[in-house]
């Protein structure tokens, strides 16, 4: 089952879970995803090779999509 999570003060919050077959869950996940983007969060999908990728649309085949806040120079 794929997961959409947000890094926040609780450690992280699971926003949505979906499978390829469950259209309702996919739609719900997509709505949550869009809402987080509108809040200024950045979506990061981890690839199989360990690198990550910034995504602007919910990748339905990803196992884990993490919403994070922007970074800045210290």
């Amino acid at each position, binding site marked *: 089952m794929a997961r959409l999570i947000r*890094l926040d003060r609780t450690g992280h919050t699971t926003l949505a879970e979906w499978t390829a077959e469950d259209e309702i869950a996919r739609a719900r996940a997509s709505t949550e995803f869009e809402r987080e983007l509108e809040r200024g969060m*950045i979506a990061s999908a981890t690839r199989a090779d360990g690198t990550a990728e910034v*995504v602007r649309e919910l*990748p339905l085949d*990803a196992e884990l999509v993490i919403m994070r806040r922007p*970074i*800045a*120079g210290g």
Partner: protein
Amino acid sequence: MTPVDRPTMAGGARLNAETLAGGLGEAARLPWRERTTPRTLRRDGRLWTAWTSWVVVLFAAPGVALIWIEPLTAPAAALCFAHAWAVPFLQARRAARSVVAIGTSAPVAPRSCDSTAGAERIALGLLGDLVAHQERELLAATGLAVEGGRLGVWVIGEQGALLVRPGGRRVDSWCVRVGDHDDLPGADRVAHLLLALREDESGFAKVANLGFSGAVWRVRGRLDQRSRPALDAARERARSSF
């Protein structure tokens, strides 16, 4: 399947680092800065070495001159030598302190101890899932995440990162943090930086502020004992992997 081939909810192509005009979104907002490459790192490293050498000469030369002119001015000369030693020392110490290990920064926003500890535990669990087995053990021991990249091997803390260059002799210190981080557990701050680094290493270094570049031993000596194994592991990997 390539990233562009993957299905998305809207059926459109997803944007990857390259299509985000400069890679990392945060980096794209800094058009006046150049992207960090091995060439810019070498150039900045040479500038740092020249600057440090200049500082040492600037303070040590008057001391030498004073003693040569009048040996009785040795106490004043000693002050000059102290300055020549202290400035590079302070630079290296600042570099070491910019990488804050998980659990050593100031407490986050006021909450109960239980909720803070619980959030930190959850965040640490996720961060542990993001790193490989060997790095996970190192993370637990040192509170720092070690991540290999194209520019070198990174040691990531809550508010900064060290980059051990290929060969393992030089280290760069970068000040970088989550923009709005006050309420985040320490492990989540590290996870933010780790994800951004994986998304676009060159852009990550572009966003971060370079605070030091010099020999690894200079920074290692100023790191706390708990953090040193992370730098040692990064140096070992930088020696063997490049």
